[in-house]
């Protein structure tokens, strides 16, 4: 870097201009190599300026000046637009640049959040990148960084692209599916009251899609989505969602089927949702009916349920509690 600075010192304006000039050239065939090199150098330069290094902290004035140039020139949109064209390390530099920009705050404002709110067309592009292995992880890290901000998370939740995640997380590639799932999880767990309102409003559609995940042939999809369901329902802000979910006989049937899954891990996750149906003091008639009808089977099944977890005090307490509640029916 010192070599680069000594030989050709670039002002902040030059770095940003260089990127704006060279990014579009990545789509043109002639003299592509030079543009790649220019873009790589500038992105590295930008990443170091914004993120610092192990030895050097970023300079606040430089960051401020850079940020202004970046918004002024619409660079974030260009970076997303041409992300698939970038080389391997440049993609990661871009991800880090977005991280630094999104975390930067001036007093109580987040300028990059304001920029993103003014350019919502970026989000569909980022989500669409989950179809391409080379670019999915950078897009994912940017989306997760965005979802940390309530205003941006709201854009994500209420866009049509949110519903795309229900199929993205079932991709055959484990790492693509996992990255999509962690973004999905970020969106649904980061801002509790916002998410509670969203799920309440879209209750039927949301859980219709979610049930597809819970019945998936893919072991990881099934296990991870069941675990996330438990987290969503137990979230205090989701109380009304939970109350509605555990009033449904169909949902109870599904949990009872998963309680008998061949996988012990899935059985275990299912228990932590099933217990909510049983513990509910205001059970619906249809739930009571099913629990009563299976009373003796449930008691004998749960009495022998995961008895090898001798050190899990919480689980054993709850299992005993659930059995007692069922006996009282």
């Amino acid at each position, binding site marked *: 870097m010192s070599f680069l600075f000594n030989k050709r010192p670039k002002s902040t304006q030059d770095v940003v201009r260089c990127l704006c000039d060279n990014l579009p050239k990545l789509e043109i065939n002639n003299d592509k190599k030079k543009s790649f090199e220019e873009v790589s150098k500038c992105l590295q330069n930008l990443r170091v300026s914004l993120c610092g290094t192990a030895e050097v902290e970023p300079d606040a004035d430089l960051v401020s000046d850079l940020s202004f140039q970046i918004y002024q020139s619409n660079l974030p949109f260009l970076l997303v637009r041409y992300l698939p064209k970038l080389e391997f*390390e440049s993609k990661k530099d871009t991800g880090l640049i977005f991280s630094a920009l999104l975390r930067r705050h001036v007093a109580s404002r987040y300028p990059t959040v304001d920029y993103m709110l003014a350019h919502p067309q970026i989000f569909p592009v980022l989500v669409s990148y989950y179809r391409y292995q080379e670019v999915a992880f950078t897009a994912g890290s940017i989306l997760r960084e965005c979802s940390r901000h309530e205003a941006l998370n709201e854009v994500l939740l209420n866009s049509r692209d949110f519903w795309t995640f229900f199929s993205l997380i079932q991709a055959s590639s484990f*790492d693509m599916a*996992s990255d999509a799932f962690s973004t999905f999880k970020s969106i649904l767990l980061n801002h509790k009251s916002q998410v509670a309102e969203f799920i309440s409003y879209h209750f039927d559609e949301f859980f219709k899609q979610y049930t597809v995940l819970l019945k998936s042939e893919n072991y*990881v999809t099934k296990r991870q989505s069941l675990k996330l369901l*438990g987290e969503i329902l137990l979230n205090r802000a989701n109380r009304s969602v939970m109350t509605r979910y555990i009033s449904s006989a169909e949902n109870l049937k599904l949990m009872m089927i998963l309680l008998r899954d061949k996988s012990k891990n899935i059985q275990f996750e299912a228990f932590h949702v099933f217990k909510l149906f049983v513990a509910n003091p205001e059970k619906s008639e249809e739930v009571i009916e099913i629990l009563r009808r299976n009373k003796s*089977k449930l008691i004998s*099944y749960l009495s022998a349920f995961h008895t090898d977890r001798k050190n899990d005090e919480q689980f054993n307490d709850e299992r005993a509690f659930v059995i007692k509640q069922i006996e009282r029916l």
Partner: protein
Amino acid sequence: MYPLNANSYTLLRKLGSGSFGVVWKARENVSGDIIAIKQIDLETGIDDITDIEQEVFMLSNCNSSNVIQYYGCFVDGYTLWILMEHMDGGSVSGLLKMGRLNEQVISIILREVLYGLNYLHGQNKIHRDIKAANILLSSSTGNVKLADFGVAAQLSNAASRRHTFVGTPFWMAPEVIQQTSYGLAADIWSLGITAIEMANGIPPRATMHPMRVIFEIPQSEPPKLDDHFSPTFRDFVSCCLDLNPNMRWSAKELLQHPFIKSAGTVKDIIPLLVQKENKLFDDSDQSVLEETINNTLKPFEEPIAEGNADIEDWTFETVKKSDSTVLGNTSIPKNSIISSQNKEELPSSIKYLEKTIMSDQATPHPFSKSLSEKGSSYHKSLTSDFAMKHYIKSTIRSMLLNDKLSATQRSSLESFYTSFISLDKNLSSKFVNQITPDNRLHHKKQKRSPISQLLFSRWLEETEKRRSLNG
């Protein structure tokens, strides 16, 4: 790049075990490419799938000639398959089985590992498991690459903690063992231990019990090389092995150390690897035996939870709500419960019973009335199917004692009773399930007090809190 399904690959030979799983030499069936495949049992091998994701993300996010190349991964049943570059020279650990390495070879390997570490650390990534077994070699190019990331995730995983400590404590940095926060410098300590491992053939304290090693490492003076080794090599090791992480040299700094600067080219390693191959050729009997393994013999089978087969499936069928009489709901589909033995007898008796009761409009329905009158005892007796069946039998018997029954009513009940007790256990159980919902509907809905809701809220908070602590 490579297909994401198990049928596309033939497993050739087990190469060893890494963090979480087993590694195979394998062939992609269409191209014939030789790759390495790590198989991880997601059901019994780990508690939390996100721990595996960490290793995969680390691998997939690396683009360095000194880090093993990652090709892709997919789930087959309960097994995660990770496709990676195969290094035909094996590991440095395998090389050590032929004897100690000389300083010239050690310096080359250390430099290449430092290039890999410098790359990782430049992105603030910690390898977490530097040791000879995780340094792989190419016998055709002499290249040296790091493999097997993510073991530190196990430190936070109760199910794997035993494995971690027993498996590889010898290379662990003091701060890792003490579970204080640790960073890139932990890899430098492991590198220093690996240097000693290559020089002596074994890491320090290799003969000590692993649990004792864990106590010793944070409390003892850092290990040293003895005087048999050159001053520059001994100094290199000292620069890596300081108890204080901040005092250790960084990967970048170590690349400038005299011991590393004097290292030769990677091609100098090739003759050693050729020797190793020749020696392995003498063990061809073993390798031929291992070659018999193929993909049709899957290493993992889907585990079946114990006791599942013994238990009947759940009962979800619902009787439709209606205002008709109890007996109106006792009409039973023939296919569902009637055995061939009772097929002719039961329907006729039931039809006769219904017909008889309908014709005596003036008389109260004895059956439903009797059930209603004994509501309190009925509720108590709902402890099992057996009790319910017993209850029905006793109810019918008590109805038969009623003097007001007409002759036809009495004979109908007697026929019904005879039919009922002759049903086998399964059929009578299903019959009871059919008949009981109507009485439950008659129960007045009991309003819950605010106290119940409050206790439920408290219970929910408790269960959420404890689960997040466990998680």
